[in-house]
């Protein structure tokens, strides 16, 4: 009897390049990282094996927990607005009506510009008296225009969150819009014939059928927020004090300011575990239910 399957060796040969890439660029660095985290590896000078001292040091360091707490707070603040705004924008532009392409482009542009450029722009526009943020608020009679946004923890956090929601919702919009356009038109027509309102159609058809896409956007958004660095580095540098120091910024400081790569690597690996746990929890919460 002939068989349609290929020899086992062919299969192995085909997956070898991919396996090799994963081993070289993921597995080996991860093992090296684990090894470095068990040493007092400084950026300058000799090093020695110190067991789990770095982990003990990290887990008892208030900077680590403060920055982790701030990162969780920041993630909690921005995740839902990014999803809701992205969803709203996707609803606006999902049809192929006249002008939809222009609107899609306008809403997506902040994401294309990127957080680095946006952060530098915001650095100028948030200046007391001269920045556009203050000029507009003074024009609207809300403030006297002298607000120093970036030297106050809560104000800086608020400004950063608004900027990030504005920048990131464009990507969510594109992902959700693709999902919405994949829903068969007949489903909506049937619901309409049954007398379903617009809101009922959204809640009973769009949202359930977009469950996987929504789960993906939320997971991407949460991971992005957990790893936030650029906007904080440019706008507040973690200050005032350490009020806006994210976990990645704390790791960066430990590695490249304190020059303690061993401890920084231990922090990174703890973050990897935490991010993995959070992502797994999200997968579980957002899983398809029968």
């Amino acid at each position: 009897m002939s068989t349609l399957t290929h020899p086992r060796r062919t299969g192995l040969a085909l997956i070898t390049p991919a396996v090799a890439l994963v081993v070289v660029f993921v597995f080996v660095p991860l093992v090296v990282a684990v090894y470095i985290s068990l040493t007092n590896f400084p950026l300058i000078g000799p090093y020695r094996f110190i067991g789990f001292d770095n982990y003990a040091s990290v887990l008892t360091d208030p900077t680590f927990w403060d920055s982790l707490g701030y990162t969780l707070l920041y993630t909690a603040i921005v995740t839902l607005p990014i999803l809701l705004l992205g969803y709203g924008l996707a609803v606006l532009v999902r049809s192929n009506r006249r002008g939809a392409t222009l609107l899609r482009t306008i809403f997506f542009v902040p994401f294309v510009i990127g957080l680095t450029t946006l952060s530098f722009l915001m650095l100028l526009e948030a200046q007391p008296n001269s920045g556009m943020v203050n000029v507009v608020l003074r024009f609207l009679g809300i403030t006297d225009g002298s607000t120093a946004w970036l030297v106050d923890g809560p104000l800086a956090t608020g400004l950063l969150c608004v900027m990030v929601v504005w920048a990131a919702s464009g990507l969510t919009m594109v992902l959700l819009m693709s999902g919405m356009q994949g829903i068969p038109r007949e489903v909506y027509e049937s619901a309409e014939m049954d007398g379903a309102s617009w809101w009922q159609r959204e809640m009973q058809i769009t949202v359930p059928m977009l469950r996987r896409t929504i789960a993906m956007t939320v997971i991407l958004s949460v991971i992005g927020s957990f790893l936030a660095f650029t906007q904080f580095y440019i706008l507040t540098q973690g200050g005032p004090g350490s009020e806006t120091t994210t976990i990645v910024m704390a790791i960066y400081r430990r590695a490249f300011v304190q020059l303690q790569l061993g401890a920084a690597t231990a922090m990174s690996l703890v973050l990897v575990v935490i991010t993995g746990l959070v992502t797994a929890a999200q997968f579980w919460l957002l899983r398809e239910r029968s």
Partner: protein
Amino acid sequence: MELTRRQLLALAGVATASAALAGCGGTLRPADIEAAGFGEDASGTLNLWCRSDTVNGTQAVVDAFHQAQDRIRVRLTPIQNGQYVTKLATAIRGGRVPDVVDIDDIYSTLFAYRGAFTDLTPLIDDLGIGAALSPGHLALSTKDGRRYGLPFIGDFSVLFCNTELFDRAGLSVEEQTRDFAGLLDAARAIGGLGDDVYGWSYPGNSSGALGFTVQPHVWATGRDLIAGDVGNQRGDVAGNDALRSTLDFARTLWSENLVPPGSFADDASRWSADYAAGRLGMFPASFGVVVPNSSQELLDRTQVVLLPGPDGGHAFFDGGDNLCMLNGARNPSAAWEFMKFAVDVQQQSRMPEGFYSPVRSDVVTPEFAESYPFVVPPLEALDSGYAPTTLAYNLIYNQQDGPWLRMFRQAVFDGEVDAAMQEAQTTYDRILRQAQA
């Protein structure tokens, strides 16, 4: 051939070990500085790194060096200030280092204590200019009595006074700048001259600039905010009377509106603007901050004095750059030849042309003092210069999330002086403990 699971794991282990070893590198060897003819008639290419902030001054010395001889060509590489420590540390870890670095003297301590620099003690002694060299620069690159750096560029914090405003307020610069009481009286009198005129200014949201200009008030009493020798240091913040007086002084300036309101958020990006506009009576800063940005008319009515302590005395931040030779330098003889040239009186006398200060007191001649009066006061009192010798300066004083800026803002703008000092004590201790681990 098929790999068994065990073989695959063994291969991965070998790859891991190779990568780890490649990443770690070995210790670079210091040059044999006592070899015959070292530092004389060298040739070839010399690799020199400098800070982006000091590239103009360094380039001028390099140009003069090229004009003076044709055996050695210097390849100058400017490095962004914020990336300097990381890039140099990475180069050392990778085993490919420049021959000489022009490095912020504050950071030279870190590399000297990590064994990255060559011991230059006998070479510096042979120069015979030790007494004239900036002791602060030398101290920052000294470990166990051995010298690992040669002072090169000076950047000193002093008090610039607008004599016209002092005159209008009926005050004498010399009499008012001896202690905090005199400074406050002067600030109040000058602030009363007009709505847009202020007695003093500080960049209240710039950790580094505040460290540069505020700490000397404390040092003038002979006390620092860090106590002990490197390796066994702790914070000396809570209970530090000189610091408390200094924070109270800055708090009074803020609460009595004696500094411009912009001081609250100033990150030093517009540091000299108010002084350059003639609106400030007194302005603690450096030669390089004030002079390039001020009109000749304003400079003609400017006088420079050292920063006083709460009840007298004076001090200044002995900042700037050291030249250090790297262990593993490929052309160390040429490196020392260049270093000798760079600290020569002729080169040092020209430093103010690039808005830097010389690092040796013997450049001060009547002609020099007439040409550059603003750099003379610290040079005539070089022993009053100081900068903390610690492995944690960057973390404590130059980072926006460091304890120094947090303490200053909490004390000065929120008025919580005791709580700020108490909290800072804890953070200073923790950071120093980690840096010395």
